[in-house]
């Protein structure tokens, strides 16, 4: 980790910059910084938004002025040590990989110069780090993906991507928590619920967690409560969706 910078980004918000580039090696530091900042700010923290290389600190200006907020950040980061690898949760997500629910399996196999089975095997072959949540509640940006699977986003995003859709864009992967528009390549579907207002902590995935995907059959997917309705064809109308 280089020397962190503390940047003003608004009346009541600071960006704490720990790194310049996306890297799984960042995550133990990001987790440690997240915890240290939460402790240092306590009641004066309104929101803390970690993302890949930075943390946005939104503090309560009724309790702190800018100087005091900066001082708390500096104090929190003093002597920071990376979190041990066991700290994020580990998840195994069963996925039914099939062109009916994951049409871009074909496209990615073509780019890879292999079969759809090759794509699936590679996608399931490693643990992914959750870098950040964003775009939608519970939507986790994970990586890094096997270089051979890296695929640009769709030119025209879909208007409707089914909940549970497992997706790839560049060197990242994600799962759509709910029905939403989206421009990522879809390769399969999981029956696992990712976000729920009644779930403890609301979101299954948290920044710093590790996720592995596991291929299952259509039968197993349905048994787990999955909806096998094929994904609609590509939408024609561009949307503002960034993910």
């Amino acid at each position, binding site marked *: 980790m280089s020397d962190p910078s503390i940047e003003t980004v608004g*009346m009541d918000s600071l960006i704490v910059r720990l790194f310049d580039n996306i890297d799984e090696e960042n995550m133990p530091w990001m987790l440690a910084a997240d915890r240290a900042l939460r402790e240092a700010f306590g009641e004066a923290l309104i929101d803390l938004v970690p993302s890949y290389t*930075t943390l946005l600190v939104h503090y309560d200006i009724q309790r702190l002025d800018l100087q005091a907020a900066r001082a708390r950040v500096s104090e929190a980061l003093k002597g920071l040590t990376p979190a041990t690898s066991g700290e994020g949760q580990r998840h195994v997500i069963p996925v039914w990989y099939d062109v009916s629910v994951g049409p871009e399996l074909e496209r990615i196999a073509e780019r890879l110069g292999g079969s759809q089975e090759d794509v699936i095997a590679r996608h399931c072959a490693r643990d992914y780090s959750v870098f950040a949540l964003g775009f939608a509640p519970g939507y986790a940006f994970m990586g890094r993906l096997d270089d051979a699977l890296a695929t640009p986003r769709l030119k025209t995003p879909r208007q409707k991507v089914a909940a549970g859709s497992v997706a790839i864009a560049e060197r990242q992967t994600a799962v759509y928590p709910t029905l939403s528009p989206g421009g990522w390549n879809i390769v399969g579907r999981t029956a696992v619920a990712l976000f729920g207002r009644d779930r403890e902590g609301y979101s299954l995935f948290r920044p710093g967690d590790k996720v592995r995907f596991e291929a299952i059959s259509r039968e197993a997917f349905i048994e787990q409560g999955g909806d096998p309705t094929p994904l609609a064809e590509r939408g024609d109308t561009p949307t503002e969706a960034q993910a």
Partner: protein
Amino acid sequence: MKGLIVERAGPLALIQDGGRFGVRHLGVTQGGAADWVSLGWANWLLGNAPQAPGVEITVGGLTLYAEAPATLALTGADLGATLDDEPLVPGCRFTIAAGQRLAFESPRAGLRAYLAFPGGLDATPVLGSVASTVRESLGGLDGQGRVLTEGDCLTWSGGAGPERTLPSGVGTLPGDGERVTLALVGGAQIADFSGTSVFEAFNTAWTIDQRTDRMGVRLTGPELHYQGEGMVSEGIPLGAVQVPADGQPIILLNDRQTIGGYPRLGALTPLACARLAQCQPGTEVWLTPVAAGQARDVHLRQLACWR
């Protein structure tokens, strides 16, 4: 339970409070009243907590039928409101009798009107707030974030406090003749914009584009040039002024995405965001730099008005 019945829903009437906090790291947007100052004054008129749940009426087209008498408060935009066909000027507390109708037509000044209820509107908080975020299906009457719909019943459980009238000077709207200036706390990537662009940002009449909603407001004007490197997505504060590749700024409001990768000039103050939320497309606005400390002082003075 008797209350106000939605007879005609209009395009966008939403239950809002101060917003949803403490969950942005999960990708959940802030939400809340876009003009939180008007909601604050509406609640103040009834003796409520400043950000108690009320209704945000965008553009108009809403008709409410009273099944029971009530004391309510109306602030924010002038949407041609009438009480049984008698004009109702915003910035007031008023009573509605059983059988009367409160109707909103179309904007005369401003964009969003706020209706407050004794003790705040009844709605069950979801993730700590009743703020309706349609895209995320959170909040509102049904907890699913949907807009008010014909047949909905608005109820409340509290009582109105002693009679109050707004202090003079409160409740002016963009379009009242004065130049609209929006205070911006410079920061983020501002140093990576060209000198000319930074100069132009603060010395140009920017025009509010048609593409404006609760996520963000586009400004049109001179093209701003970012000279820094490509960015990794990072957390976005309220009011962030981001500049995509076309050089036209977008000011991000309450329903913005939680992280994003466009370079930014800094962020408007929350007070400026409330002002912006009342600007109709075509309005000219000026950005004016303010130090974070000074912005904080002004903000705290606003909060003190409601104590």
